[in-house]
């Protein structure tokens, strides 16, 4: 089960754990953050990505002198429990963190369903939580006062694809309202939020959906849907159905030779479509929360490119750094900023400081609305070009031009 690289990493981690005790003789107290994260179950992969992001940021901040509050210095220490990817367990463990372990500050779990489950607990105990991994819009409509979410919410995931297609149509001298959009979404809260955003944006451009389907969680066959897409000659194809949806769409688009000029998919990276289906994935557009070509930076991590380099050095298993890791690190950095502005470890004072955040990070700007979401955070679009994920939108972060119409190698 353990690869040689795994052993090497374990030994390196052991050596690192001895290093700070020698280097930093000055005594900094521990400042404990608590997190229920998935180490097992369906969210295990992204749970681990999140944990890597938390750990990397905590170590980096500690090495740079820690957090300074009231003339004292503190080192971040994060206490983890495995929530087994189940909402009920996550809620239980967060209650245990707060009630039994006395943790006063919480970092979010991975995914919207789990976050949804823990928020009533953190509200009950009036404990601030910074969540960096849950995008569902519904998390911000409950009136929660102690929740702060830094990532772009789900309704923004595929809307830039519509905007981009409309812009292309205008450039070609066509009316955007003539574009035929075919789309399919898994019927879960996240994907339906994605759909809502798209529907609103389409209204803005006066576009109509020629197909607007829902796919059940268990469905892994889109043949009938794609046959229809081909028959109706759609101009834009959108699919949002987590890893399974992306993998199924990529495979079957290739099998059925679906030639749609603009194809937008969520979860391309985790579904590994560029690697597994290189021919049909070529030209597919994928939204992401973060990319290393972003022109954003902060004094702690440097630029997005610097972060990319350092996290790859710390976790050599990453060929492409998952955005889940980057946003997790930004969350820990946000805690440091909030503590230092509050100059207190009092829950209420820190909560107030969090709500007044106006922070530039390597991950992008963080400034919370009254509902605890971060509206200034926008999605980026990456297109798979020659098997690589290249940022093509928005303009100021774009590394290359969009290939339009997409050039699938069937």
């Amino acid at each position, binding site marked *: 089960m353990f690869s040689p690289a795994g052993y090497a990493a374990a030994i390196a981690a052991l050596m690192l754990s001895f290093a700070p005790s020698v280097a930093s003789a000055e005594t900094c107290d521990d400042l404990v953050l608590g997190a229920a994260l998935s180490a097992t179950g369906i969210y295990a*992969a992204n749970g681990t990505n999140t944990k890597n992001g938390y750990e990397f940021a905590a170590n980096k901040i500690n090495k740079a002198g820690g957090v300074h509050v009231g003339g004292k210095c503190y080192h971040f220490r994060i206490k983890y429990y495995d929530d087994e990817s189940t909402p009920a367990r996550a809620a239980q463990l967060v209650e245990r963190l707060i009630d039994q372990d006395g943790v006063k500050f919480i970092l979010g779990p991975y995914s919207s369903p789990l976050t949804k489950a823990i928020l009533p607990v953190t509200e009950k105990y009036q404990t601030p939580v910074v969540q960096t991994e849950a995008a569902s819009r519904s998390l911000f409509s409950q009136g929660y006062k102690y929740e702060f979410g830094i990532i772009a919410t789900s309704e923004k995931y595929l809307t830039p694809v519509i905007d981009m297609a409309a812009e292309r149509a205008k450039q070609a001298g066509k009316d955007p309202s003539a574009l035929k959009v075919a789309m399919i979404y898994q019927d879960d809260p996240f994907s339906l939020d994605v759909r809502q955003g798209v529907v609103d944006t389409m209204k803005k451009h006066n576009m109509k959906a020629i197909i607007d389907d829902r796919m059940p969680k268990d469905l892994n066959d889109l043949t009938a849907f794609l046959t229809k897409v081909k028959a109706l000659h759609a101009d834009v194809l959108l699919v949002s159905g987590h890893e399974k949806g992306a993998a199924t769409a990529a495979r079957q688009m290739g099998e059925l030779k679906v030639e749609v000029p603009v194809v937008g998919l969520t979860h391309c990276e985790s579904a590994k479509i560029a690697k597994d289906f290189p021919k049909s994935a070529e030209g597919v557009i994928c939204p992401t929360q973060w990319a290393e070509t972003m022109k954003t930076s902060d004094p702690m991590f440097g630029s997005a490119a610097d972060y990319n380099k350092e996290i790859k050095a710390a976790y050599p298993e990453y060929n492409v750094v998952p955005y889940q890791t980057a946003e997790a690190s930004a969350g820990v950095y946000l805690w440091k900023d909030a503590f230092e502005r509050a100059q207190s470890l009092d829950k209420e004072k820190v909560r107030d400081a969090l709500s007044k955040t106006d922070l530039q990070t390597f991950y992008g700007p963080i400034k919370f609305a009254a509902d605890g979401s971060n509206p200034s955070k926008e999605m980026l679009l990456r297109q798979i070009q020659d098997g690589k994920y290249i940022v093509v939108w928005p303009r100021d972060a774009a590394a290359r031009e969009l290939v339009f119409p997409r050039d699938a190698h069937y």
Partner: protein
Amino acid sequence: MQHIIGNISILWAAPILNVGLLLDGLMIGAIFALAAYGLALVWGVMNVKNLAQGDFIMMGGYVAWYLDQSGLHPLWGVPIAFLLLWGVGWVLYKAIVRKVITRDLFTSLLATFGIAIVIQQGLNLAFGPNTQSAQANLPSWSLAGGLITVTGTRLFGLVLAVLLSAAVVLFMKNTRMGQAIRATAQDPRAARVLGINTERVYTFTFCLNAAICGAAGALVAMVWNIQPFMGTTYSIRLFVIVTAAGFGNLPAVIAAGFGMGVFEQFGGFVFGAEFQQAIIVLLLLAVLTVRQIQQLSLRQALQ
């Protein structure tokens, strides 16, 4: 309602699409038919309703995926998964199934449900929770100006399913073991009295079923994708097929498998993907209702 009429008019305007959907449905149905045949076999012979059927399929899928990862062509997964799952079936039979076979319905349901959970978590621990797929890279052909595509993997699945089904049917008819299996299915006690080693028959049947699922699973990994927890969906589909066909009737099970594949494709096209599977369950309800009515009239005739 409007989009349903719209979809039907698309089929009306381009009749060739019907052929495409029919072909896709048959090729998909072939894989279902294969695994449903195994389920019906175990159900009919041993009276065990195997809830781990779909998870056997996933195991077979992971065999093909693993071979693909280690550089072998995933088509090798079909025979290799067949053999490996035969072994898995043997171990499971000797360790667990043998002990519940004589018990009532719920014991065997619970036991196979337990096996299903253990397999799911085992696959999750061994291979991780991500969706995976094996790349067979077979060619695909476009017909009728691109409106129909026949993919190599699906065609291969169809051919293989037909061959395997034919082999199993011939085996049942013409060999001593096949005869023994059929005799045991009819009346285990009488079979024992006549000198048939029913224990051997049961072992063989359970292993054969697991092996068939393994081969079907390897096809699933090449045609769709696999995930440790996806097996349950397949179990449900297979139960629908076998129940609709009547488990005593093996040729009908194969026909129902094909029929379901076709029905799913047309249902998905006309009613939208959200009803692609719901329509199958509705079909099951209809079949059960009709059966019930038929049986009622039968009972009245007996009185």
